[in-house]
């Protein structure tokens, strides 16, 4: 029975258990950085290679639709956090931006999940990861500070477009797009053959980090837990609906649902720390890393698979 579980998931569980048990386990920060570099570049490269086979004009309507989704998601989350959660404006805006944006780690696990089950998907999906990272940050900052002049838009553009995850994803996309599938052959042993192993190590560390975030959960209570589970499920429903409109394949539907369900923990926290420093990073990271990331990895992705499989047009596909 356990053999059907993706081994990378078990590495994540190991990280959580070891973290909660306070085991002497600590991945040096530069190695964590290195692993996330590899993942971001690998995902970008893979998407870029596929992008070279597509005409951009055909993809434009999909890109626009996904951008609109990324813009609306924080607007949906913000009032819930502000009124139901009774949070400060800056905190509500920050968490809303985290949930409007996406998690590359979650995306990578979903890709591994689909590959494991031989479910095909639109290989250019990494493009949507890039597209979804950006609008939520802009909307979130506008929600926190208003559209006033003293919002440092230039500063924000710098943080958004020159943040680590965007630079590496876009860089990988462009390199993959430029050289095509033949061209990436020489570097594929590092980026593609080792992908699962890198992901396993990355998830081990993410488990440790998630366990550390869980410690601060006691102070922030039930609302955050409920939000951290209900918001991704709501996002997945929206993502599945959009995939239906865009007529994506079964794998593509699961991936778009997963992207809509996931919450950022790289780009958004980094940008918000500098642009909206009043927002408490413990709150947003507890929700996105302590609750939503483990939820998506352990239960969410199979759930979104079931959601896609229940769509009428996939009846009988499995």
């Amino acid at each position, binding site marked *: 029975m356990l053999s059907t579980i993706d081994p990378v998931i078990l590495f994540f569980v190991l990280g959580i258990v070891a973290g909660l048990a306070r085991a002497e386990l600590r991945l040096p*920060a530069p190695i*964590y950085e290195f692993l996330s570099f590899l993942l971001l570049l690998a995902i970008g490269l893979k998407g870029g290679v596929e992008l070279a086979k597509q005409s951009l004009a055909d993809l434009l309507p999909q890109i626009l639709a996904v951008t609109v989704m990324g813009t609306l998601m924080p607007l949906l989350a913000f009032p819930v956090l502000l009124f139901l959660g009774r949070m400060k404006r800056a905190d509500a805006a920050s968490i809303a931006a985290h949930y409007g944006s996406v998690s590359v780690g979650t995306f990578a696990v979903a890709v591994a999940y689909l590959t494991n089950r031989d479910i095909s998907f639109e290989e250019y999906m990494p493009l949507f990861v890039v597209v979804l990272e950006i609008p939520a940050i802009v909307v979130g900052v506008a929600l926190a500070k208003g559209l006033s002049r003293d919002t440092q838009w230039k500063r924000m553009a710098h943080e958004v477009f020159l943040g680590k995850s965007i630079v590496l994803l876009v860089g990988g996309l462009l390199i993959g797009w430029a050289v095509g599938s033949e061209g990436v052959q020489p570097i594929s042993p590092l980026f593609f053959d080792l992908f699962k192993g890198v992901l396993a190590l990355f998830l081990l*560390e993410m488990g*440790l980090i998630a366990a*550390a975030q869980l410690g601060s959960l006691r102070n922030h209570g039930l609302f955050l837990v409920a939000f951290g589970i209900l918001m991704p499920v709501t996002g997945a429903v929206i993502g599945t609906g959009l995939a239906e409109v865009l007529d994506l394949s079964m794998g593509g539907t699961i991936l778009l649902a997963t992207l809509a369900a996931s919450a950022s*923990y790289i780009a958004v926290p*980094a940008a918000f720390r*500098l642009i909206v420093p009043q927002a408490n*990073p413990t709150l947003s*990271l507890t929700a996105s890393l302590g609750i939503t990331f483990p939820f998506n990895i352990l239960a969410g992705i199979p759930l979104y698979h079931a959601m896609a499989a229940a769509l009428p047009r996939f009846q009988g596909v499995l």
Partner: protein
Amino acid sequence: MKLLTIITESALEQDLLADAEALGAHGYTVTEAHGKGNRGVRSGSWTASSNIRVEIVCDPATAQAIAQHMQAKYYEDFAMILYLADVEVLRPQKF
């Protein structure tokens, strides 16, 4: 001569160093750090929880100016401590 030491979140590195230089610091040394304070454990295991320690040797007036600027700009929203110490250097003209 004064040694000004600032321990804070690594997210601030670029901004903080630009401020220090604008206020007259001629150089600085940055090291990675981790520890615990009233904003909890900063374990240094990944970007969002990592700290830096910035050391600046300068004349007392510059040290005061930088210290006051840091306090006004960052103390409210960021994990930050700073302290000043008297130090002896062999080449005072360098600082």
